[in-house]
């Protein structure tokens, strides 16, 4: 059969790191214009394989062919020169530089900011990725940063585009748009290597997929002919369990936000406009929205990091907490899991045992001295109960994988049986197994009577575990929507900023 030279052909790639065989004889072929899915859990070897392709790691054995010729890119710059572009999952952006400057660093040639800014805006319009080129990256939301990464990559006109989990921060409509873009690129002959653990996406988008598990290829298939169940068997050896719980009658109002309007602390933040919500005992309420629409500001006001809200505008039960400091709110039964695990949820360099001290105020110290026996016991019990993979209670937080650290942090809060549990992006960057477990823990907490508020960009997650939803867009919160009445499309429209009144009507319509 006559065959064009593959754009990228990997044969027998193996890569060993101390203590782990990250890639074991991996082969993979991507044709020009093909959208090829690479699926696998965190730690399955996807990142290592992409590092090899992108020139950031050298394989121990195996061969890489590019358009038929054997190549061995020894640096990302060389890989880019070949025409390989990569959108990283962990952004490789420079916070204090502007968008234009960040893009310029990756592009060769003369530095013409004005022209580049126009190119960025044009690219943004063409692919529905709006960014302000003059903004500093540190002031951008996670979602906006990803747009910058994607645009930076596209401006290099790659002939192979590697996308590492690109959709986790996009609205469903934006995902559709992105897929349109990717189809457009592929019809122009660009090969796309699409790394994801979202099996539905891979099924819609990709014509072929390679599945990795434990560093080995466990299958190459046409995902359109597979089911989610069969793909997930290839990927994790089993189907991920769905969170199950006994939905109970929601009780009294626990967390109340009452017409909260406030200016952001940071100059570049989003002001909140007249935000009202209620979370009752024994229910999970979700806030959907694309990041950067006021979630951070709202969460800071709830957690107490920003204690400028009018006192009565935030209440736990009948207690006004708007102006209380963090510790006082915690004493009232509020537990909070922030989006950033390292640095905000945990101190990276300290052991898990010491990290328990961050949010446990009682029983761990005596006369101001740390009781090491107590924190070790607590850390060990969290590790055991939540199945955290760690070297032990004293393992530094940064030595854990994202999923395991998140399990630990969620566990640390859950063991306090908080009255009000607020969690942001509970499964961001967490593998399927751990994500399912974290969701199950959140549901279990609700069943035990807590009021739970989940802020997430993953709609499927919200639909799976929540009883009611709000949508945040541009600092405004929609009306409350019962999950059983809601549709993904409707929520997506609200995320895009459709007026909230329309949504209310739709809810009534759906109910009728």
């Amino acid at each position: 059969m006559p065959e064009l030279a593959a754009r990228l052909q990997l044969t027998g790639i193996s890569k060993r790191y101390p203590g782990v065989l990250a890639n074991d004889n991996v082969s993979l072929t991507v044709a020009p214009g093909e959208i090829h899915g690479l699926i696998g859990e965190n730690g399955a070897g996807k990142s290592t394989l992409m590092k090899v392709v992108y020139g950031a790691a050298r394989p121990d054995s195996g061969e890489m062919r590019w358009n038929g010729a054997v190549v061995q890119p020894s640096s990302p710059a060389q890989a880019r020169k070949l025409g390989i572009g990569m959108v990283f999952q962990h952004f490789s952006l420079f916070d204090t530089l502007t968008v234009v400057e960040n893009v310029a660093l990756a592009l060769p040639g003369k530095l013409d900011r004005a022209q580049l800014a126009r190119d960025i805006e044009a690219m943004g319009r063409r692919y529905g990725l709006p960014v302000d080129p003059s903004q500093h990256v540190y002031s951008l939301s996670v979602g906006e940063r990803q747009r910058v990464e994607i645009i930076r990559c596209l401006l290099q006109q790659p002939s192979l585009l590697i996308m590492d989990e690109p959709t986790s921060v996009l609205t469903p409509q934006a995902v559709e748009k992105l897929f349109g873009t990717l189809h457009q690129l592929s019809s122009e002959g660009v090969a796309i290597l699409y790394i994801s653990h979202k099996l539905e996406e891979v099924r819609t988008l990709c014509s072929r997929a390679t599945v990795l598990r434990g560093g080995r290829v466990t299958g190459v298939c046409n995902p359109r002919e597979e089911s989610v169940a069969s793909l997930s068997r290839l990927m994790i050896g089993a189907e991920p369990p769905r969170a199950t719980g006994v939905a109970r009658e929601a009780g009294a109002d626990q967390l109340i936000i009452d017409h909260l309007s406030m200016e952001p602390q940071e100059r570049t933040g989003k002001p909140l406009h007249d935000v009202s919500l209620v979370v009752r005992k024994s229910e999970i309420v979700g806030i959907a929205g694309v990041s950067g629409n006021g979630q951070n500001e709202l969460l800071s006001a709830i957690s107490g990091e920003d204690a400028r809200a009018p006192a009565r505008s935030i209440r736990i039960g009948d207690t006004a907490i708007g102006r209380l400091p963090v510790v006082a709110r915690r004493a009232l039964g509020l537990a909070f899991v922030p989006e950033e695990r390292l640095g905000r949820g945990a101190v990276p360099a300290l052991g898990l045992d010491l990290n328990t001290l961050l949010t446990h105020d009682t029983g761990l110290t005596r006369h101001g001295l740390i009781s090491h026996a107590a924190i070790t016991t607590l850390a060990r019990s969290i590790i055991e109960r939540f199945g955290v993979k760690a070297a032990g209670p004293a393992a530094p937080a940064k030595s854990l994988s994202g999923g395991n650290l998140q399990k630990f942090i969620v566990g640390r809060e859950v063991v306090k049986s908080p009255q009000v549990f607020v969690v942001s992006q509970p499964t961001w960057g967490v593998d399927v197994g751990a994500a399912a477990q974290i969701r199950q823990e959140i549901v279990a907490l609700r069943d035990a009577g807590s009021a739970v508020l989940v802020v997430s960009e993953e709609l499927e997650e919200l639909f799976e575990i929540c009883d009611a939803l709000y949508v945040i867009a541009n600092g405004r919160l929609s009306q409350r929507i019962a999950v059983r009445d809601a549709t993904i499309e409707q929520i997506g429209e609200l995320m895009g900023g459709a007026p909230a009144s329309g949504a209310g009507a739709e809810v009534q319509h759906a109910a009728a």
Partner: protein
Amino acid sequence: MEQLASLIAATLSAGTPLLLAGIGLLINERSGILNLGAEGMMLIAAAAGFAVGFHTGSATAGLIAGAVAGVLFSLIFSGLAIGLVTNQYATGLALTLFGAGLSAFAGLAYVGKTVPFQTNFAIPGLSEIPFFGTALFKLHPMVYLALLLTGVVAWVLARTRLGLTIRAVGESPESAHAIGFPVRGIRVGTVAFGGACCGLAGAYLSLIYTPLWVEGMVAGRGWIALALTTFATWKPWRVALGAYLFGSVTMIQFALQAEGVEIASQLLSMLPYIATIVVLALVSRNPAFIRLNMPASLGKPFHP
């Protein structure tokens, strides 16, 4: 009036070594390296510059020797802190102590000697202007060179790819490495630039500003220059502003003494240092501003 003009001229002269060293250290720090060896580099360069100037009779040769000495000394720092990834703070402090000792030892033969170099160069025409002539146009060329250097550094940092690269390396060496920049090479380069500037500043002190060699004659200017970079929130023109501000405080101290104002001279000598602390405290009041300008990786080790 003529007195004020002289005071301005003296201020510019006094601020010049601070500006030179500060600008060099600013580039250093923009790439994420904190070199606390500044004082030591300046001392070594002051001694080396004086020795060469003394024997060759050429101020230019002395200044160049100072710059070279600064670069060589900075390479010791680079080898340790960048090559072997030793702690930047400890390495810098050790080099300052080492430089103080080495310069005192090497300068023994020159103690009490002076060099007869011209310190004022009147610019034809301009120096005839009343007041401004004396205040601005009868100074040593190094004063103007330092200002020119400030302009060049500001332009490079803001407008060129080189400057962008240096800032990127200082912001996130990991990301810069991932994109494909030679992080360590760039840092060795910026540290060498810092060494050259500190060297020029040191040699300027011993050859032009106080044309004689005395042990420890840099007298804390290296530390003030380090403080200046923070004071200036890593912006070149603010380094110049700060340098002249400190220069003026030094000069006011002399002027007050000359006027016979009854203040203990020790109290007056403290002025520049007190000013440093006050200004640093004021600048630190705006965390967002610091965050935007401070190189995020400053002082942190980087393993490629």
